């Protein structure tokens, strides 16, 4: 009994010491809420150049508390619960629509935004947020095909339909996302990625099933690692993931099929939970400055919607057709809109059934 008591006391003492140390460290690094000169930024992991955060603190005096999420849905749930007072968040386009419908966003005061004129008008006033009432573009990108030139020629994979070619038996890796995979199948059938017709969806699922013999795996972020390691010769993934894989393997290339694909956005919004609005506007203006946006784009490797920042980027990036496709391809790109609960489930059920298909 005495022994038990001693060990309990010892454990409690260790917990107390660790707790104080943790509080001390947190206070020292200035994380957590508290204090008025703070900006609570809620963003994807590794989705901003850390040097820019330091520069922002130096210029404006606001300390940045950077918290990360790994899916739009997780971010939505946390903002909805409202436990933490996030001042800015970076959701994707369909999620902005959903948050808007759930009354989770504050309208932006355009009088206080000095940098909006720097953005390319092609990426403003989108269907998910007319007149950019709630959001400022952060990065944009596409869904496309990444391939390894050691195993196949560029001419083999210019279009979505090429994935069905019998040459690629058991070679294609797909992104584990119902909307993306059904989306490109719908595009090959001349339909919209936001199609809400039972017949069209069934037709797309039927066509997708015939792709199964070519499918090697259906995975998520791991695609970039596997492509860099030559595990597969061809994969469907997002442009940002592709650019990371390409940085590690010179043989990789990325194609956005000219018949159309998904155009995605990550925009900065101000959730209802925002408490430090002055800091939030300061940050929005800071990140809209061409120099800062260019530095960020070079660090992240995604395409910047900031026209003036693009002009500052090196020519090799600026003219890279893989990540800044030509005007004709861009005009064929489609943006996802929120499908609503019923159709989100229909898409996912169709995708789940596809995944269950035997080889």
């Amino acid at each position, binding site marked *: 009994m005495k022994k038990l008591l001693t060990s309990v006391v010892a454990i409690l003492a260790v917990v107390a010491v660790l707790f104080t140390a943790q509080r001390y460290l947190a206070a020292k690094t200035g994380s957590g809420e508290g204090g008025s000169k703070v900006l609570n930024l809620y963003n994807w992991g590794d989705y901003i150049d850390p040097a820019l955060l330091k520069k922002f603190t130096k210029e404006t005096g606001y300390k940045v508390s950077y918290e990360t999420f790994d*899916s739009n*849905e*997780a971010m939505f749930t946390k903002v909805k619960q409202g436990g933490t007072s996030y001042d800015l968040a970076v959701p994707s386009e369909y999620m902005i629509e959903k948050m808007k419908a759930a009354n989770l966003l504050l309208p932006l005061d355009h009088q206080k935004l000095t940098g909006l004129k720097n953005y390319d008008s092609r990426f403003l006033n989108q269907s998910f947020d007319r007149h950019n009432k709630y959001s400022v573009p952060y990065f944009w990108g596409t869904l496309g095909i990444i391939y390894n030139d050691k195993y196949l020629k560029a001419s083999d994979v210019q279009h979505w339909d090429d994935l069905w070619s019998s040459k690629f038996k*058991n070679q294609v*890796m797909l992104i*584990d996302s*119902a909307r993306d995979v059904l989306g490109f199948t719908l595009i090959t059938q001349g339909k919209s990625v936001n199609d809400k017709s039972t017949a069209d969806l069934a037709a797309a699922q039927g066509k997708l099933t015939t792709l199964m013999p070519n499918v*090697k*795996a*259906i*995975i*998520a972020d*791991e695609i970039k*690692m*596997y492509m860099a*390691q*030559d*595990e597969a010769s061809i994969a469907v993934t997002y442009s940002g993931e592709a650019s990371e894989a390409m940085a590690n393997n010179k043989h990789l290339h990325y194609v956005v099929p000219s018949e159309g694909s998904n155009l995605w956005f990550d925009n900065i919004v101000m959730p209802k939970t925002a408490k430090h609005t002055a800091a939030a506007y300061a940050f929005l203006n800071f990140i809209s400055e061409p120099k800062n946006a260019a530095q960020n784009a070079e660090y992240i490797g995604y395409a910047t919607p900031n026209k003036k920042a693009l002009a500052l980027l090196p020519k090799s990036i600026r003219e890279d057709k893989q990540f800044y496709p030509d005007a004709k391809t861009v005009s064929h790109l489609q943006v996802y809109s929120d499908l609503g*609960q019923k159709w*989100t*489930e229909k898409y*996912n*059920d169709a995708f*789940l*059934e596809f*995944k*269950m298909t035997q*080889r």
Partner: protein
Amino acid sequence: MKSKQQRQLFYLVPYGAWLLLFVIAPLVLLLFQSLTNANGGLTLHNYAVYFGSGTYLRMTFNSVWFAFLITLITLVISYPMAYLLNQLKQKQFWLLLVILPTWINLLLKTYAFIGLLSKTGTVNNFMSFFGIAPQQLLFSDWSFLLVAAYIEIPFMILPIFNSLAEIDPKLEQASRDLGANKWQTLRRVILPLSMPGVKAGIQAVFIPSLSLFMITRLIGGNRVITLGTAIEEHFLVTQNWQLGSTIGVILIVAMVVTMILTRDRVKKNTRK
């Protein structure tokens, strides 16, 4: 007398609170959630969807089948291994080596297997040494079973090892004295006496294997689909928590069935 009872009651408070908060409340919530629709009304619709869908039933069958295979593989490897470990001099040390991998994070171990099994990985490099062309090892049923069995093996060995260690060596000697050969001793004495360990091992492996899902994606490349995949999807992507909960309830029922099938039958064991 009364004060002693009161004290006992007092000791029960933290335990009871724990049970209530972290076991009973979540179970009730899960069951309740599975019986509601999106608007909060009571309905059996989710169960109708589940049992009316060939996809979910096939997935359930897949889960049970793979969990069964994983359990079988681990059992076949673990029993002889636990038996041999018990014969060794420094058995605690050897046991430690078996348990050691459980100290490493599950995800890290999985990634290590990716390094081993990938096309440019260690195994294929080694095979090319003998002139065998690189094989596709990842994203197959076999690689999934291999990794899952590797991860679950310590949980099978431990209970079997313990139950074998508890057997009085004198019983074995007596059996030999009475004329049983080695095989008969094993079958008639050791095996029945270590049954509780085997059952505990089966429970510890079969039940978690039913809902494995990280490995199905990383190693199985989503070519192996189990109920865990469907639960993850319903909670994270479609946000249909009701249907997700329904699948959760069905998994719990499957686990209870496993527990009942492998429980110690008190009558048999007390007969000496």
